[in-house]
């Protein structure tokens, strides 16, 4: 045996070896269970080693496909799941005893886990073999992603129920996955990303401790089940330092706050999806390089390397990615892991004074922010009083201001914007993925068939037990699994609990916020606002609405803040509104323009609903409607024909130019 050298990794016998690669994942799911099953089996055959399931928004928000609110969303951003029969098809010919399944599910996590457990029991798979993750981080849903269902306290209660159940029954399951990913997408700086996600973990673990359902050894194991889902952006050195800071901070919290003795249970286990926020609609081919660079930040340093990685596709700012786009991203992971020597070395950055100093700086600031939140009452309180949310809006507004002023360079967006058009977007399908509208019918009729065949008395009994358990405050898992087996639907399970727990609307975080943009366009807009006020006797009023189930509110928030900065009176009241909510509000407020933000791909259906409502109130054509979001060019003409005055997409990043165009529309409408 030769003496190992410092640049080598050794196995337990002291021989030089190399690391196993991380788990390769592709976030996937669309259309319906049959199509998604095909996709998963193809991906597994291509060398993917874990499943990452995307659910459609109705499933995420707890509605069945046969409910009105669900209809525009069926199969759009993920797979729709209504009953256990759907799950059986989704995992058809996939061995759930073997595969590691990650579910991006939050408000309805307990329900989806119950379906998975029920599926295993019906297939005769021992449930202790199940491995995977339910995302189940409700704090970041209230802050950034928007698929919460129940109020904060009840949301945390359900998470604790799942930890309690899983530790003994499904020990390889991660009941929740603390997400900093979406915080960065919502604008968080590395410090805020560290602080708010660690506050989230503390909030969950404190609640588990408070329930006092585990002995010391069990609690240690429970801490060991907490995993993280992190983001990595373009500043890849800082991002790598952030990962090292994360690892160290988590270790310190586990030792100091939770007295975890076994180092194995203190390990910071994390999966990654690299940043989509920085991907551009302009020159979208450049995003391939961005994704590669972001990947380096979470793979270069062995001590802070991710355990699982999923990459966005180059064309995410245009629309939902196609299978080819996802394959291209998977290939990047494979090339990095297998063609390069990355996995042969110990940590490359140990002992670097630069890295150490940067890590310490991040840790210090994050600790201060964590302390501030804990002193003010902890995570749940910081959701309810809107502190964390408004901090995210502050960062996002700052980022947008810098892109607008050119201080923050984005190639192809605010610098070097002229270029040859990419042949990638010239495909016959326009380089974008479309869901076949007929496939939704298949989902709805499958649900009807299940409902026709199930034992109604059994369903009623299971729902009654579910309700009673909720009222008593007992653990909800067993009652939920029983519902799953009785073929209760997603909508029925959720509606029962919604009725007991109530609903909740979190603060929007936009009140009192402003931008730091001062430029000629702003002067022009303010001049036009003055003209408007002179003739109309009031400030222009804009109602900013997010209809449907799509919770990605960054765009709506930035437009609200920008409009206030320009001098509008802005009516914005958060996400998940119906077309009726928005139209009635716009009428009561005598709005001069309605601004709609949509990112889920359901713009065609939802704009139809909106115009129908306006028409019914005799207000169609009386107030201009503008639309912003991920809207494929191919849909633009039809939307304008429906009555949309202007469409804004991610390439309209110059917020004051957007305001300028909106003012022109208002003034032109006035002149008519």
């Amino acid at each position, binding site marked *: 045996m030769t003496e190992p050298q410092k640049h080598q990794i050794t196995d337990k016998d002291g021989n030089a070896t190399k690391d196993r690669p991380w788990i390769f994942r592709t976030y996937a799911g669309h259309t319906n269970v049959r199509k998604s099953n095909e996709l998963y089996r193809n991906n597994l055959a291509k060398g993917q080693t874990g499943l990452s399931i995307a659910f459609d928004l109705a499933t995420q928000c707890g509605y069945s496909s046969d409910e009105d609110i669900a209809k525009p969303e069926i199969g759009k951003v993920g797979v729709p799941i209504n009953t256990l029969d759907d799950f059986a098809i989704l995992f058809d010919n996939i061995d759930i005893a073997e595969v590691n399944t990650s579910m991006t599910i939050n408000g309805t996590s307990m329900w989806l886990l119950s379906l998975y457990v029920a599926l295993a029991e019906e297939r005769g798979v021992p449930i202790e073999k199940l491995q995977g993750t339910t995302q189940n981080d409700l704090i970041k849903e209230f802050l950034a992603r928007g698929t919460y269902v129940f109020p904060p306290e009840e949301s945390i209660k359900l998470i604790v129920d799942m930890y309690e159940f899983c530790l003994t029954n499904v020990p390889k399951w991660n009941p929740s996955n603390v997400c900093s990913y979406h915080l960065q997408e919502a604008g968080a700086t590395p410090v805020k990303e560290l602080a708010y996600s660690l506050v989230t973990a503390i909030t969950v673990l404190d609640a588990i401790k408070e329930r006092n359902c585990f002995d010391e050894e069990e609690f240690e194991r429970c801490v060991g089940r907490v995993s993280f889902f992190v983001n990595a952006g373009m500043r890849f050195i800082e991002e790598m330092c952030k990962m090292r800071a994360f690892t160290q901070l988590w270790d310190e919290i586990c030792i100091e706050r939770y007295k975890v003795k076994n180092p194995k249970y203190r390990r910071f286990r994390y999966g990654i999806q690299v940043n989509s926020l920085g991907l551009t609609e302009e020159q979208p081919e450049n995003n391939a390089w961005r994704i590669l660079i972001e990947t380096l930040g979470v793979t270069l340093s062995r001590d802070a390397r991710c355990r699982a990685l999923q990459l966005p596709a180059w064309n995410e700012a245009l629309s939902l990615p196609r299978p080819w786009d996802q394959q291209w991203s998977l290939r990047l992971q494979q090339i990095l892991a297998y063609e390069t020597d990355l996995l042969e070395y110990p940590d490359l950055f140990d002992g670097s004074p630069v890295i150490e100093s940067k890590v310490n700086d991040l840790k210090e600031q994050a600790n201060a922010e964590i302390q501030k939140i804990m002193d003010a009452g902890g995570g749940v309180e910081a959701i309810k009083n809107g502190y964390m949310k408004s901090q995210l809006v502050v960062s996002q507004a700052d980022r947008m201001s810098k892109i607008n002023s050119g201080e923050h360079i984005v190639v192809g967006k605010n610098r070097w914007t002229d270029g040859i058009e990419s042949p990638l977007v010239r495909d016959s399908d326009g380089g974008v993925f479309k869901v076949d509208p007929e496939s939704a019918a298949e989902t709805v009729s499958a649900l009807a068939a299940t409902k026709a065949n199930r034992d109604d008395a059994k369903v009623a009994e299971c729902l009654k037990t579910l309700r009673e358990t909720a009222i008593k405050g007992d653990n909800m898992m067993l009652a939920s699994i029983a519902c799953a087996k009785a073929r209760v639907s997603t909508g029925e399970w959720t509606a029962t609990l919604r009725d007991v727990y109530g609903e909740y609307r979190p603060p929007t975080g936009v009140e009192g916020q402003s931008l730091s943009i001062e430029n000629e366009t702003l002067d022009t807009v303010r001049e036009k606002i003055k003209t408007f006020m002179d003739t109309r006797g009031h400030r222009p009023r804009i109602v900013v609405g997010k209809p449907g189930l799509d919770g990605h509110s960054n765009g709506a928030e930035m437009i609200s803040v920008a409009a206030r900065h320009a001098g509008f*009176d802005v009516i914005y009241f958060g996400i998940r509104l119906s077309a009726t909510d928005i139209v009635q509000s716009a*009428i009561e407020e005598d709005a001069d323009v309605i601004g709609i933000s949509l990112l889920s791909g359901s713009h065609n259906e939802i704009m139809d609903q909106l115009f129908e409502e306006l028409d019914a109130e005799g207000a169609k054509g009386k107030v201009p409607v503008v639309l912003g979001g991920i809207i494929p060019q191919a849909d633009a003409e039809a939307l304008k024909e429906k009555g949309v005055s202007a469409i804004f997409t991610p390439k309209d990043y110059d917020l004051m130019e957007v305001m300028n165009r909106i003012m022109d529309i208002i003034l032109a409408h006035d002149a008519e």
Partner: protein
Amino acid sequence: MQTNPLNENQLNQLNQAAELKKLPIAKLISLFENRSEGTAQQRHDIIHHINNNPKMFTGKGVTIGFTGTPGAGKSSLIAELCKTLTKNNDLRIAVLAIDPSSQSSGGAILGDRTRMHSGSKNRNLFFRSQASNLELGGITHNTFQATRLLRYLFDLIIIETVGIGQNEIDIQYMSDHTFLLMQPLAGDQIQFMKAGIMEIPDSFVVNKCDEERLARTSYHMLRASLKQSKLIILNAKDNFENAAKDNIFLTSATKNKGIQELAEFIRSIQRNHLNEDDFNENNLNENSQSKGKKPKDIESFYLQKAIQELYGKFGLGILSQKHDSLKQLSGYEEKIAFATTAIEQQILRR
């Protein structure tokens, strides 16, 4: 100021508003908020028409004000109250919610609908946001103007102020009954008294009393502060169960506690108001609820405010000279037109 009969469009709009159709009400509010020239005549004509057709316009809107520190939960409480008060579909309610405007841009984010979950098709509930327009005082001129109209259409007008501060005292002139909202055990009761704020409200609401223990402690603390300041006559003995008799309400909007009791109290204010006869704009300033306070003369308050804004102390001086002539006039628009002309004449004479 002359009075013109309404044209067909105006009549249509007003009649539809009387049926509580939302679009015409919204347009009329905008007219009342409008400060550009030429709109005063329309407002004057409309109010004149309404006063001449009392059978068409059956609202006798009682104005209820809610003020209190930001974060006390005003919006959530009002949302719960509206749910309770509209349940039987026998009360018509308009809510005016005011949010602050930006100092630098003049724009505002009006976010009170977040808690309200408003925007339903129910005609008995109308919600409108207003920007503070950088006026001190918390209640804007726009709120005053909108209220002039809404009181003929609705039974209750609920006003939510920006959040209390040293200058936020206008609400007492605007509303028939003012509630001060506070958080339990905030320890700021004494602070309020120093600021002179305790003199404003007719009643107190301690919101966010999620647990009874919190409610009890808050009640006893608040009562002790009030007793010391001798600002309000305390009826009940120091008895938590009878807190309402001291005009102290203990609520939790999130746990739906104390809402029913507060709603009943507001209903009783509204019923008492109905018993008063001779309801028209000329006795807007009479107030049955003022407990020995000086009459709340909202109209002359806003007249003074408007004149001061336009002409400063010089204008106010002339306004007070014209006091007797103003009394002869009916209607706000006529009074302000008269005062403005008088002041302009003085300026020319100089």
